[in-house]
């Protein structure tokens, strides 16, 4: 295990998902990431699917196992072999052959939670098949629930409404555009979001900067903050924890 690399764990990996390895390599860079894939597919078959990414320089490790062997047993495997608590991010894929795909993913998340024990869960993203099942994941420490159907629908919908906007969304998705968090400067604390927009026009490097929102206290979650995109020019920054800016990757 290379501690200098960002470790990403993909749970419920199957050979059809080999495209995920390319996405990981593209986003993190082959030299800086270590990918650990865990799945029920036999090792030889899975490694064959991963061989191409490995040959291109991506550090990949495959572990055989799934929650089907029992939540506790699988949790132990994730804790010991994958050292999941140390990972930067975990991606849980749906198991297409399962009788109840999202229930299987939920049990997987339970195993991840048990594997981490008292330690906080790494950033965990779960892909689900039925958007109605998202509520079942509350309390499991999951960062993001993702419904692939929504992504497709959103992309096509924007392509129908406005092609330039569709390109913007593609750029956002592919990492060309990023959203960054900025600390609110002291002199703007008592001002409004509109004032901040008119004042913070360039970043530290002198490039144009566009403020698109804030992180503010979430009235529904005690102590937590929530993202508010375009909160309005009169939004008081006193209520905000930080600013959100849209930047373009150079």
């Amino acid at each position: 295990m290379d501690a200098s690399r960002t470790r990403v764990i993909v749970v419920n990996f199957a050979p059809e998902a080999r495209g995920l390895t390319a996405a990981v390599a593209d986003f993190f860079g082959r030299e800086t990431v270590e990918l650990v894939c865990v799945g029920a597919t036999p090792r030889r078959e899975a490694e064959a699917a991963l061989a191409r990414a490995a040959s291109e320089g991506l550090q990949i490790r495959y572990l055989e196992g799934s929650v089907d062997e029992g939540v506790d047993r699988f949790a132990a495997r994730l804790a010991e072999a994958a050292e999941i608590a140390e990972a930067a991010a975990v991606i849980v894929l749906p198991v297409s052959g399962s009788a109840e795909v999202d229930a299987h993913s939920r049990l997987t998340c339970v195993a991840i939670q048990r594997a981490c024990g008292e330690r906080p869960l790494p950033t965990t993203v779960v892909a689900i098949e039925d958007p109605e099942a998202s509520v079942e994941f509350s309390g499991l420490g999951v960062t993001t629930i993702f419904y692939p159907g929504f992504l497709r629908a959103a992309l096509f919908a924007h392509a129908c409404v406005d092609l330039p906007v569709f390109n913007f969304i593609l750029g956002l998705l592919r990492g060309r555009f990023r959203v960054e968090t900025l600390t609110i400067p002291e002199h703007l604390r008592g001002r409004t979001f509109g004032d901040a927009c008119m004042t913070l026009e360039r970043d530290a490097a002198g490039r144009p900067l566009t403020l698109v929102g804030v992180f503010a206290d979430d009235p529904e979650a005690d102590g937590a903050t929530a993202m508010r995109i375009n909160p309005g020019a009169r939004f008081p920054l006193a209520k905000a924890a930080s600013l959100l800016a849209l930047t373009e990757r150079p």
Partner: protein
Amino acid sequence: MRHARLRFAAFAVLVVAAAAPSAASAAEAPTLRFGAGSKGGGFDRLAQALDEGLAETGGRVRLEIDNTKGSCENIKRLLNGELDVALVQYDVAAEAFKASLIPPDEDQEDDAFGGWMCKISAEMARGAELSLVAALSDGAVHMLVRRPVRIDDFEQIGDAPVYLGKDGSGSFETAKVIVGAAGKTVDRLNLYQGGSGEAFDELRAQRLLVMLRTTEQGDSDIVDVVSSGLASINPLPEDVLNRLIDGYPYYRICQIEPKTYPGLEYAVPTVCVSTVLLAAVPGRADPVTEARVSLGVDALLDALDRIASDPARKSLGVRPRWQGFAEKEPIPLHPVASERERSKIWRGVGQAVGFLAVLLTCGLLLRRYLRRRGYLRNPLSSGIEGHLSNPLVPFAGFALIVLMATFVVWLLEHDSNARLRTLDDSFWEMNMFATGNFSTETLKTPGARFVGAVATIMGLGALAWFTAALTNIFARDQTRLFQRRRNHLVILNFREDMLQLVRLLRSPGPARLKAIHVMVPEALPRRVRVQLAKVKSLTIHQENPEVPDNLLHLRLHKASRVIVLEGEATASGELFHPLRIARAVLQAAMTTAGGGEVAISAATGRPALAGHHLSGPNQEGLPRTLVETSDDDPEALFAPFRSWLVPINARQLTYTWLVRAASDPCFADFFTGVVSFRDDNAEVYTAVPPPWLIGRPWIVVRRTLYSSEGRAGVLPIGLHRGGVGGPEDGRRLAINPDFESVVQATDLLVVLCEDEVDLLRVLRRSRKIAGEQEERWRREQASER
């Protein structure tokens, strides 16, 4: 044969003599003995007009007008050979003609007075050969009844005084047969003897109950008496009308139109009879006499045309006709009139053919234009099956059946059937028939009954078809009879998880909702169709999207976007591949854009196929198309279509999303907020900059929008270079452009806002702020220098 030659020679000599333009020949113009009516009466006015008309048309013939007592005397004198031409009421003339057809009984002498109208005997009728020159004007029988009495049965008259006209007049003869049709004789009526003027006085004095008068509609005497409120016009009872027409088919059923007389609000059914110009040639007439009459008829017809076309003589009501003025017209046309009729018919045929040719040419040109514009479907796709399922087709068929039956039945029976006096009557009767209420009592003639039966059968069939087509539509869970196919969205190969796409498209963000056409596979579950059917302006089509002909009716070349989705394998193994669908889209769009013709490739001379290079969507009429694919290298697979089609590797984008979300939790929230058209201020739109923002640096535009007051506020995030046209390319998008970048007229502003309407409103109100921000920026620039 010899006789005919003599006649022709005499006619030729007379024509040449009459046509010679010298004063001497004018003085020697042949003379026609003309029977008019009493002085100052209607017949007399007509005769005077004809005399003037003859003079105006060359004076080839001179009239020697005899003032007589009317139709009866005229017909008798025609038969006696004392007159050449006369004005006669058609019923009287037809009766005389009918009498002349009775073969002489050599064993028995004919009575001096027969039972025919005007007491004409068969022997007298055989005295001359009657022929019709033309029907001139119409008279309608007016039954004037003293107010407030209303008569719907002649029995109600009893012994009350009645005026039927002067003995010997056509009006009296007509009244006699009307009374006869009511089952009474004039002998038993208390007849008022006197002139019509005196009869009107009696009516005004309330001493007369009923007055039957045959005259043109709008007669001034009747107007006076009706407007005084002393009498009203009553309809002739329907049974009397029918019996009259059956016994005396020389009349025709008509109606006195509403508003003809003061206070007359409804049409009054009655009978009409025409005044005709009758010629007579004595049985043993020499050819010269015949030729003279023929010449006279020729000249009279010219004079009639002149009178009919003269607006100053419109009050005479002259409208020359040779047929169609009575239920039956037994009197043959005079040979000259017959010749005129034939030439008029041919002229009419020529005009009709010319009109049809023009109409056909216009129709063909219109069809060509519509095809070129893509409004007409390709013949290949508009098969009988498509027509069968459209409820508008049987509805139109039903309307056509009713209209045709209306016209044919009216044509057959309007002169003889009191129930079908007008096209309006006929229309409502045929509506009854076509909805299954056939009745033999309504129609009289076998021809009309046959048409009525056909209308009933076909009408019921069309109604059944209409019902079936509607049921079919409801069975498909949608009721879209009218489908917008312009600037519409087309989703091909729809599947269940894309319901989310439809929901997003119907979100309240975009300013205008476009019509959506969804082509679904057979295997799509019914519950999904039911959900789709509830969406506004969405039409479901169940067809194979890989077949170009199935896509023709979607008019893809007019579509705003086409989305091709990946299919799900069904139990039957059916799977539509996006590449094959893309080919079909190309073929269909090029076919409809070419007005139904498959486009020919300039390179190969064959129909353009998927592999041909295309110069761009706007030139080729190809819609902007997005294809969902999971192939490893979709760019290469769809390379032949790259100028108009964008392949979207949805699976790979899913992985990208997962990785982005895993590395940056902000991304997931921001992405979801931006794309989901939720009810907050986080939607992205583009807009054309208003003229006052064009030419200004981005920093000024940006500050202007920051300072503008919208419902929520707009955040400008960048520019899309080069407007909406041309191939779409992410490099045209500039997020956070340099502040000095000048906004061009072809640029689009990319803005985060609440919705499109709000953005447009903010832009409309930004002119003043733009000026202020420009000033501020200039001051900043100056201070920096």
